[in-house]
């Protein structure tokens, strides 16, 4: 087998990413999640509740491709795409889903507690809104002179969260603090319109966007199509520059849609949870398909390359699954290890 070609995102400089690279990264994440979803459903061996980002890949990929490795990303429960887009180790993520010692959290945390500090993925967690505050705190560190002296000039913190999490008090308190102290934090709201099965209309007043609320705290904010990876990437580059230059926090609201049920590998619109027409219309706006179509005009070979990337990603994730299954579980005698520093 030829060595797996890796998408060249995230980049290590601040230049714009090629659309082909962005597409490649999205294809890899899509295939990884779909493959994991099938195996999760069929085997029932990954004993951890999993929230898929299938259909939402452009947000994570577009934003993370604008970051440097040393920038730290924080996510919520729906965090696989963000972890992978930031360069998180796929093998370690899959091993974590299987609860193995080789998992990124040593089998302790599960699907919603990913971390890969080498790749600049700080942490994700399952209590809504928590990481909005944590990313704000990381940005506080990054604004301090001592952080610069370590040769990590102008790191920024980024946090992804849903429209639902923006309703928590911690969202407001964090934005207030970040704006007050002009912290280098990029808030990325992935607005997929739903919190569990509750639509936005049941949860937030009509006619006022989450972006408006961020602006209310004096934060520069933009709302855009989160399924357009180029638009997301360009907006993210502008936002990152703003944060890095010390001009304070930045807020992006990215409109997107999840294709699967809230938690688990199945579709939910067959059960009438969401209007099937909505799901289908959003599926037609698939970020992977749109990026492919945009490239086709100038790059007639793109479909063949997507097919190759798909095959490679499948092989890569299958290898990760095999490796995870061959790895040991944590020893029961180590149950308490990690409760305190030793």
């Amino acid at each position: 087998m030829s060595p797996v070609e890796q998408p060249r995102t995230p980049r290590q400089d601040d230049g714009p990413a090629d659309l082909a690279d962005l597409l490649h990264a999205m294809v890899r994440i899509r295939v990884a999640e779909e493959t994991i979803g099938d195996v999760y459903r069929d085997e029932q061996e990954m004993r951890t509740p999993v929230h898929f980002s299938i259909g939402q890949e452009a947000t994570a990929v577009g934003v993370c491709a604008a970051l440097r490795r040393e920038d730290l990303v924080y996510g919520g429960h729906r965090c696989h795409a963000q972890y992978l887009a930031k360069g998180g180790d796929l093998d370690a993520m899959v091993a974590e889903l299987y609860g193995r010692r080789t998992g990124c959290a040593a089998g302790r945390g599960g699907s919603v507690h990913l971390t890969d500090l080498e790749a600049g993925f700080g942490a994700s967690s399952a209590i809504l809104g928590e990481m909005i505050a944590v990313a704000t705190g990381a940005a506080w560190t990054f604004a301090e002179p001592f952080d610069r002296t370590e040769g990590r000039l102008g790191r920024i913190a980024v946090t992804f969260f849903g429209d639902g999490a923006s309703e928590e008090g911690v969202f407001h308190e964090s934005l207030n603090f970040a704006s007050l102290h002009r912290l280098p934090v990029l808030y990325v709201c992935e607005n997929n319109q739903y919190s569990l099965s509750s639509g936005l209309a049941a949860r937030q007043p009509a006619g006022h966007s989450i972006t408006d609320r961020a602006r209310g705290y004096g934060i520069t904010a933009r709302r855009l199509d989160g399924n357009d990876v180029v638009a997301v990437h360009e907006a993210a580059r502008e936002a990152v520059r703003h944060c890095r230059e010390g001009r304070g926090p930045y807020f992006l609201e990215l409109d997107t849609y999840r294709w699967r049920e809230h938690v688990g590998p199945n579709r939910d619109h067959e059960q009438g949870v969401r209007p099937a027409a909505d799901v289908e219309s959003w599926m037609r706006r698939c970020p992977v398909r749109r990026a492919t179509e945009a490239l086709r005009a100038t790059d007639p070979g793109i479909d063949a390359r997507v097919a190759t990337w798909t095959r490679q990603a499948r092989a890569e994730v299958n290898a990760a699954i095999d490796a995870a299954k061959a790895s040991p579980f944590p020893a029961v005698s180590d149950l308490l290890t990690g409760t305190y520093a030793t």
Partner: protein
Amino acid sequence: MRKIAYFQAIGEATVQAMEADPRIVVAGQGVDDHKGVYGTTTDAFARFGPARVRDIPNGENAFAGIAVGAATTGMRPLVVHTRDDFMFLAMDGIFNLAAKWRYMFGDRGGAPVVMRGIVGRGWGQGATHSQSLQSLFGHFPGLYVVTPASPSDAKGLLMNALRSEDPVVILENRGLYELTGEVSEEPFTVPFGKGRIARAGTDVTVVAASLMVHEAERAADALALRGVRAEVVDVRSIRPLDDALILESVARTGRLVVADTSWARYGLAAEVAAVVAEHDPGMLRAPVRRVTLADCPAPVSWPLEEAFNPGAESVLHACLELLGEEPGNGPRMEHVMKGFVGPY
């Protein structure tokens, strides 16, 4: 008598209480959706609609205070948290307001908020989605805290809560939801502060709450095969605790095991041991044993998760140890949650 599942008993109590009292309003994230909080709010929503079964935004912190504001002005809010872990965000409203309202404002009225919190269990729900908070809630005067272990108590305690003049926290273990049992179709209440003897015995007392009552009963079955008669006391109510029932049982058996799904330190198990020690330590013919969680956060990896959670086997071992028998001789017993695959 008719048998129904634990989740159905909660749903039935909700509907019957709402029929009797128009001031009761159910509020929680997704209480109106197709899952109906594991089926517990489905009937109430079908019957009373969105005006009285209200989906709310994600804002536990403010909502606890909102519920206090509503409760102190005439509403009877029943707030539902699909995980009690989310109630950490609500604690200011619960502890600094609801629990103190009556006392702090000179006993001119209480804050009759009822909060249901579901304790997650199984399928690697991990550190922040499977915590049992009875010990924490039990610490605060002014709150009632109950942990129904049977379908009948799930109904009776909820109906009692919805008639209470003071705030109540009800903790329901997810592992109990499909459990069936006899439940009266008529509305009825189970008073707070009254435990029950789930299984009579003479040799050792196992005091337990919630899911651990069932683990203790399974352990008692295994002990019975060895000629040991264990008594299982279901506390039902954490605050107030039925001291008298516990003391009366331990006075007869002389041996005490406390089984709980919260941690040992500063927990329910410590409290039960203290009640006995304070009353008459001379009753004990052997030291007290606490069967609780391992002293770490909940791990996800399933072999760790199995080792972390107390179960029938650990109760059995503790009992045998107090009776001076080799714990190693007990049978291997699987956790009650074995085979659980959600929905979580």
